[in-house]
């Protein structure tokens, strides 16, 4: 990790120096070492730039605003971020010309809650050294295994290949492998096996925890509307969601429908939710259904393919035939 960090800093200052870009979206440490947020940096404060297992935040969304500004912005994209990036470019939300995309390798992002769950508290600093994570705490140094504390989404990593970039920090072949291999639909299968009442109770239970902080929506690269329907008084949706607790839960259902076929499964919504609602399960249910109905589809695989739910082709059959033959004709 230290090595990559050095390379990254060198590359970034080179790109800013030679005018390829005039600013960069990097990551900045917060109050705690694991509390990392994206931040725009320029030549003068580039020292603060770093990259470690807590730089999970997907930068793509910030590019909507940044690509509207003057000059070119340098974006650091992990392999999974490139899916969201493609999706935003495809939907004309990010101006590709205003972005210089530097693909950076990733060996899986860490979940501090999982570290804490191992009984490691009073964290002062964390050293991300590949297989082993060294944690300095108020009670002395502790270690844990990387695989134990990986974020949920990294356990179902889409792979180390960058789907969009102008330049790669290191070739994809040389990048570390993320130990994935879990079935991302395992929990969806469980939900599907429930009775509808059980499922209803499950979601009511989860969604009732929501405090409508909107963090999930604001971080989501698929939730890229200029004005969200929930912020638009004329939509008739906004007021309704305030009517009662059930209507408020509908916020998530509507959001899931809006991102269906566009959600790249980046996992940011679940990561940022302060209430730990497993929002990704809603999206994955849609992904699974779409895969089953229309054949496997990964949103953001490229920046041109029309999504299966939002493509009309002359070969589409009549609705009556879809009903009869299940879309084969």
């Amino acid at each position, binding site marked *: 990790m230290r090595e990559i960090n050095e390379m990254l800093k060198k590359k970034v200052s080179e790109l800013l120096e030679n005018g390829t870009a005039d600013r960069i979206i990097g990551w900045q440490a917060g109050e705690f070492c694991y509390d990392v947020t994206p931040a725009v940096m320029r030549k003068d404060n580039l020292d603060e730039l770093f990259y470690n297992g807590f730089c999970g935040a997907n930068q793509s969304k910030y590019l909507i605003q940044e690509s509207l500004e003057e000059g070119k912005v340098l974006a650091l994209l992990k392999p999974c971020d490139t899916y969201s990036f493609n999706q935003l470019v495809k939907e004309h939300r990010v101006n590709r010309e205003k972005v210089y995309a530097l693909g950076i390798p990733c060996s899986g992002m860490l979940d501090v809650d999982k570290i804490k769950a191992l009984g490691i508290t009073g964290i002062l600093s964390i050293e991300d050294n590949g297989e082993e994570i060294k944690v300095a705490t108020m009670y002395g140094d502790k270690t844990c295994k990387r695989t134990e504390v990986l974020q949920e989404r990294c356990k179902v990593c889409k792979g180390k290949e960058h789907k969009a970039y102008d330049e790669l920090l290191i070739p994809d072949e040389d990048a570390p492998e993320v130990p994935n291999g879990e079935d991302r639909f395992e929990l969806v299968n469980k939900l599907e096996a429930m009775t509808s009442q059980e499922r209803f109770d499950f979601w009511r239970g989860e969604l009732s925890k929501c405090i409508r902080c909107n963090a999930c929506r604001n971080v989501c690269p698929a939730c890229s509307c200029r*004005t969200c*329907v929930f912020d638009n008084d004329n939509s008739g949706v906004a007021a*309704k969601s305030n009517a009662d607790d059930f209507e408020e839960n509908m916020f998530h259902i509507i959001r899931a429908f809006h991102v269906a076929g566009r959600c790249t499964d980046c996992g940011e919504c679940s990561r940022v939710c302060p209430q730990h609602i497993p929002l990704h399960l809603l999206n994955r249910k849609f992904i699974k259904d779409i895969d089953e109905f229309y054949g496997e589809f990964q949103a953001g695989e490229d920046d041109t393919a029309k999504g299966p739910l939002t*493509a009309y082709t002359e070969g589409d059959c009549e609705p009556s035939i879809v009903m009869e033959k299940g879309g084969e004709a």
Partner: protein
Amino acid sequence: MQKIGVFVCWCGSNIAATVDVAAVAEAVKGEPGVVFATDYQYMCSEGGQSLIKETIKEQGLTGVVICSCSPRMHEATFRKTVEAAGINPYMLEIANIREQCSWIHKNKEEGTEKAIILAKAAVAKLNLNTPLIAGESRVVKRALVIGGGIAGIQTALDIAEAGYEVDIVEKQPTIGGKMTQIDKTFPTLDCAACILTPKMVDAAQSEKINIYSYSEVEKVSGFVGNFSVTIKKKPRYVNSDLCTGCGACMEKCPSKKTPNEFNMGLDNRTAIYIPFAQAIPKVPVIDTAACLHFKTGKCGICQKTCSANAIDFDQKEELITKEYGAIVVATGFNPLKPTKFDEYQYNQCADVVTSLEFERLMNAAGPTKGVLLRPSDQSHPKKIVFVQCVGSRGQSCRDHSYCSKICCMYTAKHAMLVRDKYPDTDVTVFYIDVRTPGKNFDEFYRRAVEEYGVHYIKGMVGKVEQVDGSLKVQASDLLSNDQMVLDADMVVLATAVEPDPTAKSLATMLTASIDTNNFFTEAHPKLRPVESPTAGVYLSGVCQGPKDIPETVAQGSACAAKVIGLLAKDKLLSNPCVAHSDELLCNGCSTCANVCAYGAIDYVDKEVNDHGKREVRHIAVVNEAVCQGCGACTVTCPSGAMDLKGFANRQIMAEVDAICK
């Protein structure tokens, strides 16, 4: 605040028997905006309409809800009614309490409850309605007919007769369709060519008709009254302006081994060919797959032979774009090729032929000059077995479920003609049912049986086998329950009528719909039989369903009447219920354009004023003249920028809320 009047129709007992109409009127009285509610026996009657008009004036209504039959029935009528009383026709809502309520409920209590809910939903929507104004568009006074069979020819002649220009696009080198291949026609037995050729000539000579033969429709855009169509003229490699149709090129062409399509492959033709003597236009085409010049770069004999200098090996495909007010589909059919019906040995045995092949074998201009000879050894067949319903009325996946309608009659015709010409021939017909409704049709069939001694056996042929140059036909007689084996010299299969294979792609291009069998669907099976559901697109002939010639011609003329009715108009009112996008909300994501089946959405860079901030944004703009108001874009738009006038998201939501309350 709206002032709404609600009128609940009894529809005689159609509604009133299952819905307590008075209770419905009573129940909506308390709804927001409702100032008047009543029930009446027949709202659509003159009395009912006067009641609406008077109430609008007396009560100063701003909107009207009519609880009655489906809006498909009388929405147009009631829009006129309210307009006559001075309110905007789009300030009308219809609650369908007949098809969606009284007709599907038995219990009056349930029916009434549902009718009340539907009425309340309509009121909730109407509260959010705004007056809409229909735009106007011009009508291009020219029609396009796709397909130049008898159907297309008849339609074109009738439209031309009324004084309008018509273009016929025919994919084959000549117009005429299947009728050119038929020998004699039931029920009168006059020769097909004798009655068809004059019509083909009329079409060719009409000043108003322009024939694009050997051409196809490439692209269609626009809408009723204003279609723009790109026609692809395939290269004939013969200059039609210079060619005199003398045929010298055909005589000299050394490539003579291509199966002749016109004679169903029963003889061969040259690489440069005119399908048949009466072809229109009488200009040859070069089949590049067979032409030695195209294959080897040598030959060119035709070019040397042609004294008119008409051969042009460099001719290129030509694209022509023209505007039309109306489009007629007349793409006809093809008889099924029974290659999947192994039991009849069609693939293996030359003496098993289809009915259309049989027509060619009986025709004076056919491969045998009208002498009935077996394809295998050119001998006279003495025993002929006809099998009906091959590929029709079946359940298996190689069959069509529909009846092809014409086969009973033409099989009777074939049987009769054979017996007439060759009285020593033994003719047997296997049938499932003999279906001969039609003027003089049953008489015709009975003549075959009674006067010409054709053996009709109700039964199915299980297997045809070739034994020593002759055929053995295994069959069952369903009436006597006997199994039988018949000797035959020839077997004729009456194969199913199938829509032309281009029907599907054409339907998509025209946004017209087709049924599961790929026949074009009419706008209403009884009341609008020659119109497609897409405005400005009409149906003529077998493309809509199996038909014989009299029916085809009748439909072709009916279709022309509809087209003439449209072309006679100077302008059309467009549907104001179209989509529009809010430029401040639009993300420019292009999702709406991806789903719009009509290509009605464009993207433009437009300067917008977002609360004082001026900037150029890439946003969606709907072409209102092209939009069909289907609403696909509005449900797709993530930001809610796209909305449908008259069916706004808020209005639909208000209805849903009223229903779920």
